[in-house]
């Protein structure tokens, strides 16, 4: 009997770990572009996630712009539609604020401008969180879809042990993987992708090769923001959220990116997946309030023990 419960719990942790992990993976890719590749320390990444959630919320539930799509398709299309809005926002932020403390301006300076980036993005984060409270209010909201309370049942596999696959999470999982694949192919094989990677990798050399580094940066930063926003929109279908939600996830994102190895998009995805897995498994033994604390402990262990990441090749030079 106890064994049945154990098996059921473990199997559900595995499936939840995979589905949620892949959504975290997508979320981490966004930060992976900004922090892993462009080496911009972005404190406000959690707020891009939050903006993605609210963009999706207003498109689907609040503003009902996409209400005609129905409660099944709407939320997921809304999540994808959140990307362009946050992309533009990210690009604008980059143009007016971030570009002044990163890229060509700080290449070669003593700390590569990290001090300035930490401070400016902390400011952006404060403004977006608290401004979000003014604009969106502080009552938690959710993108309503009947799918979030429905599940596919697999089993019983062992005795009465059954695997529950939440429908909203499952669809969100497929959308996340699809977006991640499209993004990967774009970055890997298109001209734009190569220019972005070149500019991010070595801005000075890229300028000499005729790449408009500033534009490339703006696009890459916007893309990083937009990708995380999609993940936010997807998560909005199964959690409720407020303007301060970003904070819980920014550490998860940094864990994922560092774990996956700096500078690798695929690594960021695997890193996010791993963190999602750890989080779901910690739920087996830890009370829910301590799950977030567990993530912080995991993060500290990652940066202390393997700052080069599990999948990364080159270590950040100390």
């Amino acid at each position, binding site marked *: 009997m106890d064994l049945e419960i154990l098996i059921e719990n473990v199997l559900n942790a595995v499936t939840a770990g995979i589905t949620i992990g892949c959504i975290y993976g997508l979320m981490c890719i966004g930060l992976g572009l900004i922090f892993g590749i462009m080496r911009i*320390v972005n*404190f406000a990444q959690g707020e891009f996630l939050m903006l993605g959630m609210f963009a999706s919320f207003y498109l689907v539930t609040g503003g009902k712009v996409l209400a005609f799509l129905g409660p099944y398709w709407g939320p997921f299309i809304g999540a994808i539609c959140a990307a362009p809005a946050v992309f533009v926002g990210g690009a604008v932020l980059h143009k007016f*604020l971030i570009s*002044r*403390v990163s890229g060509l301006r700080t290449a070669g300076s*003593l*700390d590569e401008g*990290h*001090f*300035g*980036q*930490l*401070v*400016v993005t*902390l*400011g*952006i*984060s*404060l*403004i*977006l*969180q*608290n*401004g*979000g*409270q*003014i604009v969106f209010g*502080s009552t938690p909201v959710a993108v309503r879809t009947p799918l979030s309370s429905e599940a596919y049942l697999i089993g019983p596999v062992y005795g009465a042990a059954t695997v529950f696959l939440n429908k909203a999470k499952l669809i969100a999982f497929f959308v996340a993987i699809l977006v991640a694949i499209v993004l990967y192919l774009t970055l890997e094989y298109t001209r734009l992708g190569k220019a972005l990677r070149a500019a991010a990798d070595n801005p000075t050399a890229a300028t000499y090769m005729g790449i408009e580094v500033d534009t490339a940066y703006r696009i890459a930063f916007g893309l990083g923001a937009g990708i995380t926003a999609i993940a936010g929109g997807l998560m909005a279908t199964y959690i409720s959220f407020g*303007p301060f939600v970003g*904070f819980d996830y920014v*550490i998860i994102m*940094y864990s994922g990116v*560092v774990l996956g190895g700096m500078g690798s998009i695929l690594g960021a995805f695997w890193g996010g997946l791993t963190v999602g897995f750890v989080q779901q498994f910690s739920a087996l033994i830890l*009370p829910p*309030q*301590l799950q*977030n*604390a567990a993530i*912080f*402990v995991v*993060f*500290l262990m990652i*940066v*202390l023990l393997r*700052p080069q990441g599990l999948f990364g090749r080159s270590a*950040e030079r*100390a």
Partner: protein
Amino acid sequence: MRQGTGRQLRRNLTALAVVSVAYLVVTLFVANSYYQLILTLVPVWALFGVSWNILSGYGGQLSFGHASFFGIGAYTVTLAVVYWSLSPWLGILLGMMLGGLAAIAIGLPTFRLRGHYFALSMLAYPLAILYVLQYLGFQEVSMPMHREHPVVFMEFSEPRLYTLIAVCLLVGGVVVSLVIESSRFGLALLAIRQNELAAEAAGINARLWKMRSLVVSGMMAAVAGGFYARVLVVVTPDSVFGMLVSAQAVVVTLFGGVASVWGPLIGAAILVPLAETLQAELGTYLPGIQGVVYGIAIIAIMLRSPDGLFWTIRDRWFRQKASTPIPDLMPVMTPPARPASARAGAPLLTVENLSRAFGGLKAVSAVSFSIAEGEILGIIGPNGAGKTTLFNVLNGVLSADDGSAQLAGQPMLGRKTFEVCRMGVGRTFQVVRSFPRLPVLDNVIVGAYGAGLSDRDAIASAVRALHQVGLQDQSGVAAGQLTNKQLRLMELARALAGSPRLLLLDETLAGLAREECDNVLEVLAQLREQGMTICIIEHTMHAMMRLADRFVVLDHGRVLATGLPRAVVENTSVIEAYLGKKWLARQNA
């Protein structure tokens, strides 16, 4: 006390006395209890900023998690009153001690990280504590009243008394900070902030000083938090461990002026009343306006004047008169003469079979050589031959895979960089590593402190080193304003100030014009006269031919040849390594 800081310290203390008395006088005229509360909170947040400034301003170790210490202070005071009916006066002391212990517990693992990894990790601590407290059920704890002992429990009906205590606490914090600023503690922190590796190579134990600054900072932050809890009576995890609390310290300090004790005071005096008033006036319509104001404030200050208001104002209106040169009365000592036996050529440094690989690349492989006392050994070799790696292994920046190195019979390997320096090994770098904002004299004093000299001796030693390299007239100039040649000489002086037995010079002549090069060579020749032992890496052959007694030629990490300069440059394998086989074949044809 450092050179010239005594007067500055007295001036700052006078200013502090004037400001705090003026502040208290203003308090007397404020009757409204809400405004009085704001007047109490300004010094509290200023104190918190001062504490952050010690670690992150002077030391440059950016912490986004200072709420850890603030919150520990706040919860200690509150829970001590709730469970033990302990007086907040003692509670604050207890909180201070716990804050210091927390600093050690947090610092031990976290100081292994640098730069933004350190900043991000510090962020994780208060949040982890926050979740744990929520789990333990301390969502909202309020302090019970003890009306029978109002003084013991800091329960004053007169709100001005809270302001008085807050100002006293702040004055205490500022004095601590001023003392640090004017001592070797402060100089070590400034040096670490500007160039940690250079500070280590100059003998500064960076890890230890950072740890000390975190402990002092954590204790001070806990005091601020403890008193804050007493003033507000109710604590919640979010109000003392939350992100906005950590941000508060960062924001008031950056806004007011980083690495100046006045910065947090100015920042708090402007931002706290502004944010509180806005919150009170507009809070109902615009909740969170405080955070927005803080966000705008730090972005604006970062983009307009990244060092904060204090420095901008000072640079614009109170530009300091040209710094005073070294006082003439300082006797210029002649460097201690070496015993005659030292000249006899007993080996000072012996390197045997030293190896270091990076993955599959053998950067240094089975290198053996020795340097006699008083000798100048030139290390030459093509790019990538492993010369700089050899130096890095010798002075502890990198660890060796194999082999041994001894300085006068004592093993050098396996020691930290600052320890190697204290054994008597001075080092300069291929790319100059200076402390650009410190004046030349302070740059050099860092080296003398590194050697463990007392304040008096350190200044004397630094002055002597500046005379040795001929930079005595530039002693008051910030290092950032020096020419390349002067920087090279200053780095040399910094190494000399620790009275080393052996100097490791890494391409000291790189990027210098012929004339400047001769200039530096003269200085080195003089050092040789004084009996200094030097190991120098150099590419400029004509210079090396004049300077070095003996050459060691490295190629692909191996010793290719050793010997007298003339013999080495005629060695065919050396010519081959430098100019290629074809060239050699054509010469011989």
